[in-house]
């Protein structure tokens, strides 16, 4: 025991921070502040009308777009292109990724090929795709599918590689068939990695969707944005961009929902 004469000093707390916590509303507040700033700036003339449209005008354009029915006319072809292309690319990508993860020969044969394809800007191949798959929807599907395929493959075989080997050993030690080990141990074990790969692949799919539509489509968000840009109609340009952002947020939210459903077992 210390003698009564010694001074007592509380131990300083130094263990805070470095632990991300959920702060739901901060993201929204940042959005609202930014938009409010733009609105204020454009109204007062602090920001010239040439550099940025008034957010309220963009909203008005958006409302007109909705009321004239043009919104759906542009959105529906875009969404169907995105759905078909991304579904095609992601499913083939997951399949090939799993095969690379499971078989050494396929890995040895395909990994260099994937590495060679990955950095090609897929949009550069659009003229080729037009020849191969036709000027209509075919080339757009192919472009989006091809763009989602490579990142999905890389994420999937990485995820398969990361499946806990001790679980596979366990399956073998209980005499489980190869099929059972793949279906019941490898695939569920790779699911977290596959889903986080899909997050990136689908964002790339949206980017490619717009690129494909800019190069040749009558309707579609990409075409809408391109037209607005050509006329320097900033309100419409921004309305289109906002739609894309919302699309990205929705896709990301959908994946989060799937993750919560499928990956509730994660600690």
């Amino acid at each position: 025991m210390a003698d009564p004469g010694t001074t007592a000093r509380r131990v300083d707390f130094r263990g805070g921070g470095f632990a991300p916590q959920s702060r739901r509303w901060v993201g929204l507040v940042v959005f609202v502040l930014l938009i409010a700033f733009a609105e204020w700036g454009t109204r007062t003339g602090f920001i010239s009308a040439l550099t940025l449209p008034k957010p309220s005008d963009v909203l008005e354009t958006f409302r007109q777009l909705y009321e004239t029915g043009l919104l759906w006319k542009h959105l529906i072809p875009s969404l169907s292109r995105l759905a078909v292309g991304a579904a095609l690319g992601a499913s083939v990508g997951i399949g090939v990724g799993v095969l690379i993860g499971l078989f050494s020969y396929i890995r040895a044969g395909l990994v260099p090929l994937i590495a060679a394809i990955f950095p090609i800007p897929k949009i550069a191949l659009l003229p080729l795709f037009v020849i191969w798959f036709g000027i209509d929807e075919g080339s757009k599907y192919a472009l989006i599918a091809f763009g989602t395929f490579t990142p999905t493959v890389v994420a999937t075989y990485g995820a398969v590689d990361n499946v806990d080997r001790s679980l596979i050993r366990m399956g073998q030690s209980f005499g489980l068939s190869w099929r059972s080990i793949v279906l019941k141990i490898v695939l569920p074990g790779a699911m977290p990695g596959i889903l986080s790969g899909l997050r990136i692949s689908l964002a790339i799919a949206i980017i490619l969707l717009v690129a494909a539509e800019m190069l040749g489509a009558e309707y579609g968000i990409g075409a809408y944005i391109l037209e607005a840009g050509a006329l320097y109609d900033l309100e419409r340009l921004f309305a289109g961009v906002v739609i894309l952002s919302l699309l990205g947020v929705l896709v990301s939210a959908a994946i989060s929902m799937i993750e919560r459903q499928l990956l509730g077992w994660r600690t």
Partner: protein
Amino acid sequence: MDIRLSGVSHAYGQMEVMRDITLDIPSGQIVCIVGPSGCGKSTLLRFIGGLERPDQGEVLQMGAPPEGCLNPLTYIFQDFALLPWRSVAGNVSLVLEDHGIRGTRAREIIDDVLDRTKLTDFAKALPKQLSGGMKQRVAIARALAVRPAVMLMDEPLSALDSQTRELLMDDLIALWTRTPFTAVYVTHNLAEAVRLGHSIVVLSRRPGQIREIVEIRKPLAERGFADPDLEAQQKHLWNLMRDEARAADAELLHG
């Protein structure tokens, strides 16, 4: 069904890990294998269960496994190896599904093994919700479900704290007393070896060779915590191992 190891030797590349191991594992008994770290205890267990092949010598099953046995050589792992995405019951069901056992028949087996390991109330829980001791009891339940002829236990209690370890040793003794099973139990913990082993095989340090086989005649059910007879046996084992353990500790890894 007995297991016989004859002249098993093995090397990983240049490094000889095991030399001429000949050993009988009689049915209905628990054989503990102890030895300093790196002596090849776990490798030996992988040979017995066919997860690895020895360079020389062979591992033989003597006689047929008993009727109704789905997986004669069944492991219990140190890290439990439970599928985190399956519930307790689902983890047990996993090893039955491949034998075409589903529905009510599976239900009966699962209920029975969960009851024997005192997990009935946790059938629907996920592994992340369980303590280490419970996880290992799930792994034991899963092993019991396939009615193994020989249980191959690879340091099953080493990932647990010492109190949980005591509890699980009591559970294992109760399970064995109810229906004697054959087991090869690898451990570095001498207290576990003297509590659970009918015979204890002491391996030397690398390359692992059998130094001595110690038989303990006292029935499992009569062995308790801090038992003086067992303490004496444990001291004897430690005397056999101490110098080797020290030398093994001072060795550089990977040559």
